[in-house]
């Protein structure tokens, strides 16, 4: 039977749009995060606490991904973010095209940081490049310390893992060291931070991490007109 060779990544079209997005972000000198976690691990609370510490220093845009409602966008707006809510209407992840479709009118040129809060899901979002600089995963102590090996692909892909809700550690059986070891086996380059967005512990290190990466990104940006 005649054979037609294709040899393509199934998501090659998404990847091409992600490349366009990445170029657009880079042209505007933006540092872009794609935040992935299961529902309820504290993505929006981390954004609120981050905005409280950074919104008077840098201009932050947030792109919120949820199946429905504007609730998360309302929450981050109340803490000084501009941005837009994407409702996927049942979809379990954001795609590069969904991001591209909201970029016009967001005011990228006036911003410094973009946080894309993906749909709460530890599996599907890890497959879709959105054009971000930093893919990061959150794991809350309440979810249990067995998650890296149960959901390995996101930990394999992430550049940064944040263990959230560490203020709950006295009440839980959560082995922080074990989680750190398992993440490093899956991905030896993945950095791990621990914090409580609600109580503030560990937030300074996270803010420093962001600012360091923002400086690196700015230093790499070609000067205007070049």
């Amino acid at each position, binding site marked *: 039977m005649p054979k*037609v060779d294709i040899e*393509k*990544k*199934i*998501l*090659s079209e998404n990847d091409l749009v992600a490349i366009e997005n990445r170029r657009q972000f880079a042209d505007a000198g933006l540092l872009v995060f794609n935040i992935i976690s299961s529902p309820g691990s504290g993505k929006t609370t981390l954004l609120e606490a981050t905005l409280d510490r950074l919104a008077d220093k840098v201009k932050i845009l947030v792109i919120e991904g949820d199946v429905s409602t504007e609730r998360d966008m309302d929450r981050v707006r109340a803490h000084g973010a501009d941005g837009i809510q994407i409702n996927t209407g049942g979809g*379990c992840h954001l795609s590069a095209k969904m991001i591209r479709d909201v970029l016009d009118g967001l005011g990228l040129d006036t911003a410094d940081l973009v946080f894309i809060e993906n749909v709460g899901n530890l599996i599907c979002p890890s497959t879709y490049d959105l054009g971000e600089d930093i893919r990061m995963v959150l794991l809350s102590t309440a979810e249990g310390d067995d998650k890296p090996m149960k959901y390995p*692909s996101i930990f394999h892909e992430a550049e940064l893992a944040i263990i959230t809700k560490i203020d709950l550690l006295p009440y839980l059986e959560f082995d922080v060291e074990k989680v750190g070891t398992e993440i*490093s086996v899956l991905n030896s380059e993945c950095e791990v931070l621990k914090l409580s967005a609600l109580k503030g512990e560990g937030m300074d290190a996270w803010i420093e991490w962001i600012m360091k990466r923002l400086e690196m990104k700015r230093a790499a940006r070609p000067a205007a007109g070049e």
Partner: protein
Amino acid sequence: MHELSICQSMLGIVEKTMAEHPNATLRRIFLDIGKGSTVESTLLSEAFEVIVSGGQYEGVELVINDIPIAGRCRTCERDFTYEEFALGCPSCGSTDIEIHSGLELDIKHLEIDED
């Protein structure tokens, strides 16, 4: 459950390819799906059946080649394969390992009947 959207992306590529062969009938689609790719072959096959049902590709066979997670231990320098992600080298237990394959999400080729 993102197998439906993966399947739609895959069929988008198939449609573009088949447009270059307007007189041909599609018979089989061949995919490589890594065991560590986040896509579950059984769910993908089910999604495929649902999507193509009643359409031009009804009856087309989806052939999925599951690719195990394969890598090499930097400590004992042995090659290994996993059915799923595991902690370290199966031979010496070292955690200093590198993964070479098992993350694939590729469309390889089609089989067609030319009229």
